[in-house]
């Protein structure tokens, strides 16, 4: 904890508190809170209407699952650029394979999670067994998997069952069901990271792979586990996306990887691995979901939306990102 603040000597107390807040993922919540307050003042009734809250939460579900997987991979010192394409492929295949047959729903969901795990396993093997740089492995997979999706169908295809669409629209109070999936996933990942040896090892491997190995951690299974987790969550996100869209599309998840990485980083997780908090990543997802919502709610001029998005992201990373150890 103190490793960053210590060399800074006299300015330490306040900075330490600040960087501690950043590291525990609290910082991004400060912006989220500010944004929520601003929206409450500007558009109170529009924002706090249960439908709008549901829209924010539902919008956060898919991105949240993907960002969660990204969080795990990044903790292990890697990066997963292929998550967007994995979501595309699994959501397309969900619709194409289910194709309106209720009895296929459950087997397909299972198959998609397995497919996600398999793709994650491939990523993980190339990274941990073949020892290739994660950036390149997953960039290659990004192209490869999107290519496969386009080969499966170049046009929107397939159809999910009513059970799936109903699920995507069901709510518990103002909370949409897909968001509950995210909550469950966050809980599961938290348990895995905080309460299992694998979780502890992941931090160790991400922090310093060689030290971890020297300390007797078996690096390969740990990294494999991280990429498989990311793949499984991407598979799940793909199913949710298909349920929400009702139809499969060969471009459904494109760009998700960049949003997911952004969410993880503005949440205060170090891209170098080993440090980061789940709370921060969830905050990053909340921030991104809120930005989209705010732009529409405030009816900002449409040509300014990219500019606003860029400014907020730059401000977030510039102010709240954890400094790299020098």
């Amino acid at each position, binding site marked *: 904890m103190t490793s960053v603040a210590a060399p800074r000597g006299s300015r330490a107390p306040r900075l330490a508190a600040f960087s501690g807040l950043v590291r525990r993922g609290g910082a991004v919540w400060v912006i989220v809170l500010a944004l929520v307050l601003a929206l409450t003042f500007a558009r109170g009734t529009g924002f706090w209407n249960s439908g709008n809250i549901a829209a924010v939460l539902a919008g956060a579900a898919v991105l949240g699952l993907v960002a969660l997987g990204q969080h795990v991979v990044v903790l292990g010192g890697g*990066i997963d650029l292929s998550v967007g394409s994995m979501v595309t492929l699994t959501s397309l295949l969900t619709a194409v394979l289910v194709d309106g047959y209720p009895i296929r729903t459950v087997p397909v969901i299972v198959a998609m999670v397995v497919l996600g795990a398999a793709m994650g396993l491939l990523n993980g093997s*190339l990274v941990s067994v*073949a*020892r*290739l*740089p994660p*950036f*390149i*492995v997953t*960039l*290659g*997979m*990004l*192209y*490869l*998997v*999107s*290519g*496969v*999706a*386009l*080969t*499966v169908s*170049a046009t929107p295809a397939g159809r999910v069952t009513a059970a799936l669409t109903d699920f995507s629209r069901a709510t518990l109070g103002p909370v949409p069901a897909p968001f509950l999936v995210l909550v469950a996933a966050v809980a599961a990942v938290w348990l895995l990271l905080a309460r299992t040896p694998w979780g502890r090892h992941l931090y160790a491997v991400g922090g310093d792979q*060689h030290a971890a190995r020297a300390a007797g951690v078996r690096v390969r299974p740990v990294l494999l586990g991280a990429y498989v987790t990311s793949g499984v969550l991407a598979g799940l996100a793909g199913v949710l996306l298909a349920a929400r869209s009702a139809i499969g599309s060969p471009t459904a998840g494109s760009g998700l990887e*960049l949003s997911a*990485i*952004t969410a993880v*980083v503005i949440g205060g997780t*170090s*891209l*170098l691995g080993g440090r980061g908090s789940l709370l921060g990543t969830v905050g990053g997802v909340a921030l991104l979901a809120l930005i989209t919502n705010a732009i529409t709610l405030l009816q900002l001029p*449409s*040509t*300014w*939306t*990219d*500019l*606003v*998005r*860029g*400014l907020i*992201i*730059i401000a977030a*990373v*510039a*102010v709240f*990102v*954890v*400094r*790299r150890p*020098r």
Partner: protein
Amino acid sequence: MTTATTGSASVLTRLSTVLAPLAGLVLVLVLAAVTTPQMYTPDVVRIVLFQVGIIGIAALGQTLVLLTGGIDLSISGAMAMTSVVLAVTTGGSDGRLVAGVLLSLAAGLAVGLLNGGLVVLRGVPPFVATFASLVLVQGVVIAWTGGAPSGRIPAGLSWLGQGRVLGQVPVPVVVFALLALAALVVLERTTAGRRVYATGFNPDAARLSGVRPGLVVVGCYVASSLLGVVAGMVNASYIGYVDAALVRSLNLDSIAAAVIGGVALTGGRGRVGNTLLGTVMLAVLLTWLIQLGAGAGARLVVSGAVIVLAVFMQGRPVRIPRITAREKDTT
């Protein structure tokens, strides 16, 4: 510096990083000869050369950043921005061409400084910093042009994208060759170049030996953005209009070219020759896929497989990476 101490092992590594992409290139060339013999007609060779030029200029910038252990996702933003700046400031007439070019370079400088500043002063991971500035650059362009970037590029610049040297060789590849030569000389023969390698290989060691890593890193980001501006000028003058479709795209060709060629993402390892090789391989591959008439899906699958395979092959025959990686750690 440190590379020298690894001695014969590093020679082997260097050899393997060149051999793998070279083998890949030969493979693609053979496949092309079998499946699309027209690849070897002067017309298609010229297309490949043009592609080498346009990908290569940006890839050189990318290489500089990669050598410092960074990455620059904003290059395609700088390219798109250049075409808009050129068209808007000149209004399509040659009279204000110089002003347009200078303004483009100034804008490139600003993007480079922003990237470098975020990375060095704020310690933002390069991937995120440059992605954020890509979004910002796109945002500025969209807000500035009201969402419809358009306009003409002055005819006075068209030689850059459409001209040929000696009647055959496309100008872009000549520009690339000159820039590559300059980069080669700077990186391998000057103090500045050694500092880039030292910074990328081990910033702390570099600092101890009197290098200011921050300055080096900022310099590389600025150079990268400026090369992006040059690539943007070539691209814009090739078609003569602002291409709105390209303003929003995130083009990773420059990264792919450098990495396929064997430039390490971890910094400190890779030469201009690697980038050249990777660029040629990528240009040949992309052209071959068009010639084949491969579907969009197949094209993506092949590109993805080639990227992974190329990196897989590097360092396969001689298992040096583990040793060098350890050494890097202990220095």
